[in-house]
């Protein structure tokens, strides 16, 4: 089957068994790979209501038809499972050599089931699977663990591993790979930890089946050079993602002080210019020629790799405007395997809760030393507060009470990425309707809202734009499995992706064909949520309450006195549901499921929740 290896590797840690399973061409064409494969497998195999941190959850690594093939930015893998932070479908993607190595080993996906008897490292080399003890690195951070693995196998292998946060079931623990970054902020590191799975190491030696390997090789290499040329000409990677920080500050979209403020006079101290000036190295994922990672020395002399999201949420959001200090918090998150975004939002929530008298504590904004200490306590679940904050802001707010739920900056249990939507309705919608909680990877509409329509609008054009971008960002790039940056940041044409798809699979598809796949996957993820939350309603798709609060409106700057309005947001949400073919609860209608080829999944979900 060109384009796919046609095999999934299923491993059971309890029984220490494994088997290779073939999938059909129909399955491949219907779900493509990555998020599509993961969502379908989890929907079919997980009984609703299982504990995401129990042995019944499954940890999935899923790749797509162009993953690992030399072509622009294909060194990415999707990690997925039922999310410990949201209780719904959870996934994330990260740069890793696992993408190429797992496919060369002969698999398009890995499913890990059960729970090991002791700390385990899974070693996969083609047809061989070994269950190896990982006691030597249990309790260690991701850097030391990675070094230990490289010392054993050399640097050519693909590695996924977790730090102390994953081991201790911090609900927003990530999976790390030093060949790229971190991924799975929906708690996929905790899912690994719950299985006592410290690391997955993969080596493959087989060719990846392709319809036109020579053509793909030529086009892939040419395009890698072209992406490099365009990036150099545009200068995007000079400041990389952090170029946007100064802009967010100018247009009142920066998270400052747990999102209480939208801009700050000191923001320039951590902006893209300062980051580029502090650069000591550049870092990238495999198969990438527009490497976006900027590494600096942190305040303890360690190398820390920064981007906008982690600077925004560990910097201005905590009112820390010192790059080496932010670098230090970021380094600790990376080493412990804590998601920098949820980590930043959980700390800022705690500072805000103390500020508002919801809880007593010796911590506050602009407290780098206190933040470092708390990150360690969270990773180890140390003391009462370490344990509470390890649960994330939504659960911490339930514990603290006193109205603090309103300013826990999360949707569905996943903390908000670094865009302050106090008065950006479309982006608030993008966070609200993201299928995994408040992640920016699905859709990002802020420049559209400012430039192509009005910021004040709650019109259908914004709902449509959110859908258009979901189809591309949360759809195409997540199931074909490739980094979205060439398209979003330097304008690399979307038409290249059907071109690559054809070269590997022989299938001549249009972008519209792909959008149907995207809509299918989004609908099925909705069914996953319906099964978990049968009483679900549209409130699940609401952004944090504080953005609607007039008392929280800015007192100066471009959006002084402005805030989101409930009625209008609800209208915008309805536009989204109408355009998607969802009912008033935000669940796809039977007609929509039929149209998208998921009627069967609909019938399976109907045992748990009503369809209309």
């Amino acid at each position, binding site marked *: 089957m060109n384009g796919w290896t046609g095999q999934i590797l299923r491993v059971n840690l309890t029984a220490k068994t494994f088997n290779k399973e073939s999938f059909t061409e129909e399955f491949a064409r219907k779900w493509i790979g990555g998020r599509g494969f993961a969502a379908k497998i989890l929907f079919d195999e997980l009984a609703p209501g299982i504990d995401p941190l129990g042995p019944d959850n499954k940890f999935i690594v899923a790749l797509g038809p162009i993953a690992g093939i030399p072509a622009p930015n294909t060194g990415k893998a999707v990690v997925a499972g039922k999310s410990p932070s949201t209780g719904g479908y959870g996934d994330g993607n990260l740069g890793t050599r696992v993408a190429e190595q797992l496919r060369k080993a002969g698999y398009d996906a890995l499913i890990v089931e059960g729970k090991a008897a002791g700390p385990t490292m899974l070693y996969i080399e083609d047809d061989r699977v070994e269950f190896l003890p990982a006691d030597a690195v249990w309790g260690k951070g991701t850097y030391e663990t990675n070094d230990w693995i490289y010392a054993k196998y050399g640097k050519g292998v693909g590695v996924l591993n977790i730090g102390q946060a994953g081991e201790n079931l911090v609900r927003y623990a990530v999976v790390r790979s030093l060949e790229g970054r971190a991924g799975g902020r929906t708690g996929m590191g905790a899912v690994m930890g719950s299985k006592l799975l410290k690391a997955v190491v993969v080596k493959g030696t087989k060719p990846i089946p392709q319809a036109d390997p020579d053509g793909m090789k030529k086009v892939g290499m040419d395009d890698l050079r072209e992406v490099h040329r365009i990036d150099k000409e*545009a*200068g*995007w990677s*000079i*400041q990389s*993602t952090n*170029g*946007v920080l*100064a*802009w967010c500050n*100018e*247009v*009142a979209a920066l998270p400052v002080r747990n999102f209480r403020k939208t801009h700050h006079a000191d923001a320039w101290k951590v902006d*893209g*210019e300062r980051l580029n000036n502090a650069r000591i190295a550049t870092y990238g994922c495999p198969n990438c020629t527009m490497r976006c990672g900027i590494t600096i020395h942190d305040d303890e002399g360690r190398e820390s790799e920064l*981007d*906008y*999201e982690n600077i925004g949420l560990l910097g201005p959001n905590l009112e820390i405007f010192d790059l080496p200090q932010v670098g230090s918090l970021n380094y600790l998150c990376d080493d412990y395997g804590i998601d920098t975004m949820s980590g930043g939002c959980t700390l800022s929530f705690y500072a805000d809760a103390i500020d508002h008298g919801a809880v007593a504590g010796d911590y506050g904004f602009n407290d780098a030393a206190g933040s470092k200490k708390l990150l360690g306590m969270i990773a180890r679940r140390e003391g009462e507060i370490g344990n509470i904050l390890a649960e994330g802001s939504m659960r911490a707010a339930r514990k603290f009470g006193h109205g603090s739920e309103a300013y826990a900056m999360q949707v569905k249990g996943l903390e908000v990425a670094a*865009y302050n939507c106090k008065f950006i309705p479309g982006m608030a919608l993008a966070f609200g309707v993201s299928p995994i909680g408040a992640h*920016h990877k699905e859709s*990002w509409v*802020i*420049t559209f809202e*400012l*430039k192509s329509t009005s*910021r004040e609008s709650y019109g259908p054009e914004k709902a449509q734009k959110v859908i258009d971008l979901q189809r591309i960002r949360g759809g195409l790039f997540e199931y074909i499995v490739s980094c979205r*940056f060439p398209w*979003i*940041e330097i*304008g690399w044409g979307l038409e290249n992706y059907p071109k690559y798809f054809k070269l590997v699979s022989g299938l001549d598809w249009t972008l519209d064909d792909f959008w149907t796949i995207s809509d299918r996957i989004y609908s099925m993820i909705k069914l996953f949520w319906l099964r978990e939350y049968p009483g679900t309603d549209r409130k699940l798709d609401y952004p944090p309450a504080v953005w609607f609060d007039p008392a929280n409106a800015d007192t100066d*700057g*471009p*959006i002084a006195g402005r805030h989101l309005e409930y009625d209008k947001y609800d209208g915008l949400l309805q536009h989204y549901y109408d355009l998607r073919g969802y009912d008033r609860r935000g669940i796809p209608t039977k007609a929509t499921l039929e149209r998208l080829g998921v009627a069967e999944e609909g019938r399976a979900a109907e045992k748990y929740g009503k369809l209309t």
Partner: protein
Amino acid sequence: MKITVKLIGPFVQVFGFSEKELDVPEGTTAEELISLVSIDKSRPKIVTRNGRAVVPDEALAEGDRVVISPIYSGG
């Protein structure tokens, strides 16, 4: 009238400054200002005036802060 121009991201390196104050004639429009600071017209960009998007022929006023940015897509 005095206008502050702030460039964002790669524009800083490409056009050679980060932020500067300019003395421009009354009635200068956003588009004219962009030409004054030699920003390539064909470059996709988003221009804001005091944090709000402007149309090219909008007249500027004393003390305005004009920010010229590439069109970011949010990582």
